[in-house]
C-alpha cells in the first residue's frame, strides 16, 4: 500500500518535472526548429551553382526578346542617353574576320566562380552568393566603379541618374553599380530568369538555365555532351554562363 502511494507520488513528481521541463524547453526547441526550417536564404546553398548555356546557333540576329524581358522584369529602359543607360544584357553581333561567318548572342554578367569584380571591390559590396550568383549589395556600394574597370565582359552599368520607375523586387539607386542578377528574386521563387523564359516563350530555345552542380540537370548533360565555350577562357574565371556554337 505504502509502495503504491510512493509510486503515485513519484509518477506525479516525474510528470510535473517533465511538464515543467517541456514548458521551459519547448519554446527553445521550437525556435531551434524554426532556425532549421528553410528560410528564404537557404536557396543560396553551395550545393547548387546556377548557370546558363546559350546556343548561339539558335539565337537570331536582330532578336531582342531576352533584352526586352530583362528590362521589363528589372525595371529599366531607355532614358534617351544611350551612353549612360544601364544594360544588364545586350545582344552582340559578331563576324569572323577571316571567314565572314556571323554569330549573334546575348552577353551579360557571366557569374564567374572567380569574379574580378568581387576581388577589386573595396567595401565587399560586389559579392558572390553561395549558389554562384554574383550580385551588388546596394547598401554598401560606394559607386567607385572599380568593378566596372575590372570586369572583362563590360557587364556592369553605373546608375547615372535618378529613376522612379523601379520594380519593387529590384531596387536600383543613383550612384551605385549594378548588373545582371540572374533574376535572383525569381530563382528564389523557383522561377527561371526572365530572359530564359522569354527565349522559350518565343520558341527560340537558345537559352538554358539550370544547376551546373547537378550532373542530372539538362544544362550539365548538354555541357557534358557538346563542345561549349567560356568567353575569355584565357582568364580562367570559370564562368557560370557558357556558349555553344561559337
Amino acid at each position: 500500500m505504502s509502495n503504491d502511494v510512493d509510486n503515485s507520488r513519484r509518477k506525479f513528481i516525474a510528470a510535473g518535472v517533465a511538464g515543467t521541463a517541456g514548458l521551459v524547453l519547448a519554446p527553445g526547441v521550437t525556435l531551434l526548429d524554426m532556425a532549421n526550417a528553410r528560410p528564404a536564404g537557404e536557396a543560396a546553398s553551395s550545393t547548387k551553382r546556377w548557370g546558363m548555356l546559350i546556343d548561339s546557333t539558335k539565337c537570331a540576329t536582330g532578336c531582342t526578346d531576352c533584352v526586352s524581358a530583362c528590362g521589363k522584369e528589372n525595371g529599366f529602359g531607355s532614358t534617351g542617353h544611350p551612353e549612360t543607360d544601364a544594360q544588364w544584357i545586350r545582344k552582340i553581333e559578331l563576324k569572323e574576320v577571316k571567314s565572314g561567318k556571323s554569330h549573334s548572342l546575348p552577353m551579360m554578367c557571366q557569374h564567374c566562380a572567380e569574379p574580378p569584380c568581387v576581388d577589386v571591390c573595396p567595401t565587399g559590396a560586389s559579392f558572390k552568393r553561395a549558389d554562384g550568383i554574383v550580385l551588388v549589395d546596394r547598401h554598401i556600394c560606394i559607386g567607385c566603379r572599380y568593378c566596372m574597370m575590372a570586369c572583362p565582359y563590360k557587364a556592369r552599368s553605373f546608375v547615372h541618374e535618378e529613376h522612379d520607375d523601379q520594380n519593387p523586387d529590384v531596387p536600383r539607386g543613383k550612384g551605385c553599380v549594378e548588373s545582371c542578377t540572374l533574376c535572383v528574386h525569381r530563382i528564389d521563387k523557383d522561377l527561371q530568369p526572365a530572359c530564359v523564359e522569354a527565349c522559350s516563350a518565343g520558341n527560340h530555345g537558345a537559352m538554358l538555365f539550370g544547376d551546373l552542380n547537378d550532373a542530372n540537370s539538362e544544362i550539365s548533360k548538354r555541357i557534358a555532351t557538346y563542345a561549349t565555350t567560356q568567353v575569355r577562357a584565357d582568364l580562367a574565371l570559370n564562368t557560370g554562363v557558357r556558349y555553344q556554337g561559337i
Partner: protein
Amino acid sequence: MNNDVFSKNKDGAFYFVLGVIGLVMLAGLGAAYYMEHYGHVVTGMTNQIVWGLPHVFAIFLIVAASGVLNVASIGSVFGKPVYKARAPLSGLLAIAMLAGGLMVLMLDLGRSDRLIIAMTYLNLKSVFALNVFLYTIFFTVVALYLWTMMDRKMHGYSKYVGFAAFIWRLALTTGTGAIFGFLVARQAYGTALLAPMFIIMSFSFGLAVFMIVQAVMYRWNDRVLDEAILHRLKNLLAVFVAAVLYFTAVYHMTNLYFAKQTDFERFILLDGGIYTTLFWVGQVLIGGVLPLFLLFTAKKSGTVLVASALIILGGFFQLYVFLIGGQAFPLNLFPGMEASSSFFDGRIHPYSPSLPEFLLGMGGIAAAALITAIAAKVLHFMPDDKHHPVSQ
C-alpha cells in the same frame, strides 16, 4: 632675415591669394554637389569611360604627393644637407597633395555620402581597400616626420621616422600602380611594370611641383635660391624625366611584342586621334623631350621653372592618355571577330570632359594649395639654407 614664408608686411596680398584659392576650392565643391544632385549623367563619364577627368587630377595629386616627399627622404635617409633644409616643406606638400587628391576621388564617388562605409567595410583582397591603409598610415608617418623635424627635442628620431616615411611612400605608389596593374580585363593595364613606372613618375612630377612651390616662396620673400642648390635639383629632375621616358618606352615596346596587344598599341601610337596627339605632343614632347633639353641647358632659374611647369603639364597628358585612352579602346571579348552592339562593343568610346569634372579636379589642387599656404603662414616651412650649407 625673416624666415617666415609669408611675412607680415604682405598680409593683404596673402589674404587675397588665400581668397582666390578658396574660391577655386568652393567652385570644386559646388561642382561635386552638382554631380551628386543630378547624378553622373551631367558629366562626360559613361558606362564606357567609367573613370574620367577627376581621376586624372586625383591620380596626379596622389602620385605627385608621394614623389614630393623624396626631397625630404634624400635629406634624412641619405644625409644630404641641401635636401634636409627643404625636408619640412617637402613633408607639408606631401600631406597637402594627398589630401587634395583624395578629396577629388571621394567627391567623384557615386555615393560620396558613404565615406564611413568606405572606411569601415573593407575587402582586404581589394587593392583599393589596401590603399585606404596606405593613405592613412602615410598621413600619420609624414605628420610624425614633420614633428621630429620641427621640434628640437624630437630631432634625434628624425632619421628613423624619415626612413619609415621613405619606405612607406614607395609602398603607397606601388599601391597606386597596382590599382591598374591588377586589372586583367583591359589591354592598357594588367602589368606589374605599372608599379615601378608610377614610382618613377612620382619622382618626376613630385620634384617638379616642389621646384615651383619653392620658387613661389622665395619670390614672395624676395630671396634668391643659391645657384649651386638650383643646379643640383635641376640635374636630379632631368634624371627623373629621362627615367619616365625610359619606362614609357619599355611599356609600349613590351606591348608591341605581344601580337594580341598590337591593335591597342596602334591605337595609342598611330591612329588614336586625340590620344595619339596627346601621347606624342603632350606626353613625349612637352612632358619629356622639351623639359629634358631645357634642364640640361638651363642657365637661369626661370628656365628650370618653365621645365618644371612642362613636366607637370606633360604628367597630366600622360595620365589622360593612360587612363582615358586605356578605356576608350574597346574590350576584346571575341578575338578574331568583329563585334557590334547597342552597348558600343567593338567601337572606340568617345569622351568629352565636362566643366564640373574639371572644376572638381581644380578644387583638389586648390585644397592642396590652401593647406600648404595656411600651414606655411603659421609654421616655419621656408627652406633654411643657413643651418644646412650646401658645402656640407
